[in-house]
């Protein structure tokens, strides 16, 4: 296959970026999208040009480090991470636009690489259960109904890639934030901090400059782990009831 790429190049956070066109020849349909970018970078390097910077690590769809907007869609045409997208999803001669996540709280570092540390700060604001090492009771002390454990798991599969933010017209991180809130709210261990957690995380979400949710659903449509949209409504119920709790915060 022969592919034409139009890639966002931006030398650093302060510089102006622009789309640059590259040709990649002899692409195999079995290659992953990132392997195709590797090929381009090898070619650029040998020519003495600066290779395209992009984030990636595990390349098996679980670390959440990779993620670019491909032809206007976060992670591209199939619902998976960028690293799991394969070139067989494109046809010979395709023209592909490649851009970084675009959202104010995710400033561009270079080319396709953005800063997602805002997500870590949202977790710091309450996305945990306070269980210091060594204090745990026996694992079977609190049985958990399978349906609740499964719901918790479905929410907990979030990989923190940020596609939800990139897809949302409001630049909202509500799918990410709510997934964590629901994961922990479904478990008995998560109950003591449930109200503090939802208030703390939502306040941090706002402080980071993410937009609010207006139920568009673009986030769930591109989520590589298919986190269901209804985690946001469940979070909203928790948020409303938490506002009536006196808990010192």
């Amino acid at each position, binding site marked *: 296959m022969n592919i034409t790429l139009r890639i966002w190049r931006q*030398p650093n956070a302060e510089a102006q970026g622009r789309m640059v066109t590259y040709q990649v020849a002899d692409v*195999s349909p*079995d*290659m*992953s999208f*990132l392997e195709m970018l590797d090929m381009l970078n*090898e070619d650029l*390097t*040998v020519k*003495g040009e*600066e290779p395209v*910077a992009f*984030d990636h*690590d*595990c*390349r*098996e*769809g*679980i*670390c*959440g*480090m990779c993620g670019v907007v491909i032809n206007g869609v976060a992670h591209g045409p*199939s619902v998976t991470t960028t690293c*799991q997208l*394969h070139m*067989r999803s494109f046809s010979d001669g395709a023209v592909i636009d490649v851009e970084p996540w675009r959202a104010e709280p995710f400033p561009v*570092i*270079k080319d396709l690489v953005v*800063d*997602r*540390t805002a*997500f*870590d700060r949202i977790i*710091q*604001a309450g*996305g*945990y*259960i306070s*269980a*210091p*090492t*060594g*204090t*745990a*009771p*026996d*694992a079977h002390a609190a*049985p*958990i109904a*399978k349906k609740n*454990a499964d719901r*918790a*798991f479905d929410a*907990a*599969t979030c990989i*923190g890639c940020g596609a939800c933010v990139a897809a949302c017209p409001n630049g909202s991180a509500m799918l990410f934030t709510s997934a964590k809130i629901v*994961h*922990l709210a479904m*478990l008995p261990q*998560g109950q003591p901090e449930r109200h503090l957690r939802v208030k703390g995380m939502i306040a941090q979400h706002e402080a980071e400059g993410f937009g609010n949710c207006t139920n568009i659903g673009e986030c769930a449509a591109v989520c590589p782990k298919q986190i269901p949209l209804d985690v946001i409504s469940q979070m909203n119920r928790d948020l409303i009831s938490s506002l009536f709790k006196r808990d010192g915060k």
Partner: protein
Amino acid sequence: MNDAVDYYIEGDPVADTKAPAGPIDKKWSERQFTARLVNPSNRRKMTVIIVGTGLAGGAGAASLGEAGYNVLNFCYQDSPRRAHSIAAQGGINAAKNYRNDNDSVYRLFYDTVKGGDYRARETNVHRLAEVSANIIDQCVAQGVPFAREYGGLLDNRSFGGVQVQRTFYARGQTGQQLLIGAYQALERQVAAGTVKMHTRHEMLELIVADGRARGIVTRNMVNGKIETWYADAVVLATGGYGNLFFLSTNAMGCNVTANWRAHRKGAYFANPCYTQIHPTCIPVHGDTQSKLTLMSESLRNDGRIWVPKKAEDCDKDPRQIAEEDRDYYLERIYPAFGNLVPRDIASRQAKNMCDEGRGVGPAVTEVGQDGVERQVRRGVYLDFADAISRLGKDGVAARYGNLFDMYLQITGEDPYELPMRIYPAVHYTMGGLWVDYDLQSSIPGLYVAGEANFSDHGANRLGASALMQGLADGYFVLPNTVNDYLADAPFEKIDDSHPAAQEALASVKGRIDKLLSIKGTRTVDSYHKELGQIMWEYCGMERTAEGLKKAIGLIRDLKAEYWENVLVTGVNEDFNQSLERAGRVADFFELGELMCIDALHRRESCGGHFRAESQTEDGEALRHDDEFLYVAAWEFGSGGKPVLHKESLIYESIELKQRSYK
């Protein structure tokens, strides 16, 4: 005769592993009692550097932060949640005996030592088995959503090399869920101010001042800033070095640089040749491939592995091959363990089937060690047809759905319809920096945890034991041993004016300048791939004296060429991925040579180290306990030859036997 004798110098044996005396099941509580303590109000005067945020590093940083120390935590990724522990799929072992099937701490200990082919240190493995149950409790308390049954209790499954069900899991994403648990505990400490997190920072040098590990030098991967950090103790939880092979199941960024830099500063590197080649990975598709993807060992609970009996059937549609024409070779050779034999055995048998010409999938051109080109099919079937007829498609999807989706995504073939094709790939490294019972390396104040150390898996790791070891080290071992060393701290303050810091800074800057100034004609990746091919061919699943000697020569030549002709673009003061990789590959060359020397000097087969010269009549690994019952701890030889220190392995609680899974 010892073919390796010209390649190394033999030094003094390792005198002491510092494990306390007494019965094996009392040693850990004895150590917890004898270790000196640090009063909580003094802990906040002390700083601990932890490099890595995976299960060992993340859990260690969170736990030491909770204890009240000032923790500086570093990772090369953009967030601590990306560490490669996240990719572990199948599960985590624990001696809970929730299945009422004769499991116990002793059995987990026994299985792990036997699985490691009697090359692990008894004392450390027993402690691992002892704390295993606490890990599950800890993770459940943090909200890790393990798989549960309808009654609300935790579910279990089996893994290779054992006959009990002691593996806890969270679908095919157990590593992810455990890591997120540790990450959340870590972020809680970041919010509390006990842990300072430095992401996108890569450790490039260790600072050893006045005989103690006192700090590190890092490169800020966003702007190239070279910085020093000081502490009273340093912990490396930097993972394994499987990425040396270029193609492996490791993440692209996994590297040995932190460990290698520590090795060059005096930390012994133990058993570097013990590499785990995992039997169930998606086969290589072409020469532009960047990594290999594992299909969890848990699939061997329900999948059956086979190849055609007749070579002429190899290109047929597998559904058209009659039952009597299939060779379920693991069930045939190992009736007691069947498809659940340990990884080293399953991998080698897959290789044997393909070498015999009964592999499946597309034929690829290979150049053998004899220099002759031949066409070989590198794949065997992992078939779920029986499981689907027994459990239904939904039943199989509930257990392995995400793995089946991943397989479809990568290969374009639907494993519900066609059997998966799998082949072994480099997955884990049992070798690592040498540590004593306290996880302290041969440099005072330098601790090593998780896959980065060598301590628990001998010559072969059993499935679902890596997660167990990472969390055991991070949550339970380090917080009970580092204090013994810190009881003498805080140490005298040092800064950049100290000669040790000056030397480390100059070394980092010198290397970076050198790599950027070569401006040769070949890319870093092209060298990495070539190094990987040499290692896979000569230091992979089967090793020979002749091949290893050849490999050492090839690696030395390639390394020399690298330092003359590598092409690294850009400058240091920038986000520069080409420079990052260049430094890592430079260290891989040096480790690759040591791995081959270690493999050459160990003239026996054990676990993942299979020397063709040492096998039984049935082609199984043949150990030589009389000569090689020791850990090979290598000291960096400044004169070019590494120095071997032997740590004798003492088996008091387990009888040494030839391993059998038949």
